[in-house]
């Protein structure tokens, strides 16, 4: 099936004018599948880390949200072991007027402000709530261990 105009244009813009700290490059053989890299934001426990993600645009995109998943291990209360992300705009708050760029910016923002009250990884969230400093330390260690090239 031919790629909708929307996806073509979005991709063009993503490549021509990438958001700072974010890159998204479509696979040559599947233009709905993107290799994504998000740099850990400054002043966050993920600073200095380079996180790989995969992003897939389903058949009914943009009516349905893109599917995004972390490939790099990350210690974060809203991201589980399988890299799945708990983010409202990827679920019930999705709007077809949102774009790949806005989704990736939201994920980057999620790295800056973890939300242990809406957890996906329960044990991590628990850790975060009980001893935030210690949890941040673990997140920094994981970043060093798994997210540095």
């Amino acid at each position, binding site marked *: 099936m031919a790629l*909708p*105009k*929307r996806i073509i*244009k*979005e991709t063009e813009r993503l490549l021509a004018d990438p958001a700072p700290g974010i890159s998204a490059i479509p696979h040559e053989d599947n233009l709905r599948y993107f290799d994504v890299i998000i740099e850990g934001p400054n002043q966050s426990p993920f600073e200095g880390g380079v996180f790989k993600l995969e992003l897939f645009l389903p058949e*009914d995109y*943009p*009516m*349905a949200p893109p599917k995004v998943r972390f490939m790099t291990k990350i210690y974060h209360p809203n991201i589980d072991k399988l890299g799945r992300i708990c983010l409202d*705009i990827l679920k019930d*708050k999705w*709007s*077809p*007027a*949102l774009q790949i760029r*806005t989704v990736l910016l939201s994920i980057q923002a999620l790295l800056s402000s973890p939300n242990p009250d809406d957890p996906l990884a329960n044990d991590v969230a628990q850790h975060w709530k009980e001893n935030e400093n210690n949890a941040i330390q673990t997140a920094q260690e994981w970043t060093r261990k798994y997210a540095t090239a």
Partner: protein
Amino acid sequence: MSSGSLSDDDFAGSSDFDEEYDSDDGSDMEYEQAGDVGFSDMITEKQRKKAYEVDFSVMPLADILSAQSSASNHVAGILGVTLDQAATLLRAFKWNKERLVERYMDNPQEILDQAGVVLEEDVSPVVKRPKGFVCMICFDDSSSGPALALRCHHVFCQPCYEHYLTQKIVEEGESRKILCPESGCNVVVNEQTIKKAVPQAVLDKYRKLQDRAYVADLDILRWCPAPNCENAIECRLPYSSFTSIVPTVMCSCGYKFCFGCGLGDHQPAPCGLVKMWQKKCADDSETANWISAHTKECGKCQSTIEKNGGCNHMTCRKCKYEFCWVCMGPWSEHGTSWYNCNRFEESSSTDARDQQAKSRASLERYLHYYNRFANHEHSAKLDRDLYTKTEKKMEEMQRTSDLSWIEVQFLKKAVDVLTSCRMTLRWTYAFAFYLAKNNITELFEDNQRDLEVAVEALSELLEKPIEREKIAELRQQVLDKTVYVGSRREVVLEDTAKGLAEGRWEFFTEFAKV
């Protein structure tokens, strides 16, 4: 709207086995018109409300529709908004008119924002594409072509709007609050816009979903769960009362169910008890199967151990506890006399056996009730099967003799009553499982036994071979027993319902509301 409560002639009507046979409503009617003496006393009692009956009414789909529009009309009149806006506001307040009006009077703007309603004169959602327009969904930037916008002025092209709404309605089943496609915009897509944007089939689906949501949002309404039935039942009892009342209702389609939880009729057991029992059965059904006389529980970790050899020196696979199969005492205390266990009375093994006995006893107790519960369900099916066979035989008799069709109908009535009674009996066993034993429960058990005896007697009678010469005699016997069984069921239901209302029963556990 037709009003009513359950009465005697209803109780034979339906059961959990409805799918398995075709009940022919016409036949019952004609049968009763035939004025059979056996049922006359039951029919005269019809007017008096029983302790186990609740008031309810059947609401056909048309009534549900008109209830919504009359509420919208009323609110539109009071607040000076359009019908469409009134409906959106009402949905946001789960159709609680009084609360909506009260809150609206306090702070109209806050309520409007919350509900996603923008007051503005009624303008068509179809708009011209503004200069420099780009549809943020498809990125189409052509300057002509249909486009739509709500009063928030977020414009999208018509095909995208249609696609978006169809996705929400058909794929996601949303109808209460479909928001403007713009990210973060809280304005609700009104019905006028939906009408303009989607094809008729999607609009129909949208309206159907709204009716579903209306019934779901109101505690006093519940859909009849029978397949293909479009009625709802209205019952004004508060949900909190369903710990002491079992609200069995019957739809005009003939299906009898519980208003509290939507399951098939489960009198006399209250909803919370039913839920607990079902959970227990689901958890224990496997357990019950694998525990047999050949297994024992480990004295330390309670996991089950199967003895498969002759040696009495057992080692728990899970916790490695070593013990003697005969006395259940620790093996270490056995010394070398293991082949001849002589430690039966030692305290450590008595303790172990006590614990063992306790968990066995509780399992046996459960199985006692469960087996009876399951048995009545199974028997009801057998009764049905038997009836199907008998019916064929009767039809043949009808063809080859002078028996009229009406004369052979007594068996159908009997089987209906029988099924209904078995369903009641079934739930009395779940009820009894949680009942603490005391003087009052003895009466309950007597009633339960009387019903059970009567049910089995009728069931047995139906198994008798049918002979042409004795058919009149059999008919009278069956009719008499049917009436008797029905009256025993009455007694059980009356007594349990009164006991619940009076708080007379003492249960082992607290069961929650629905």
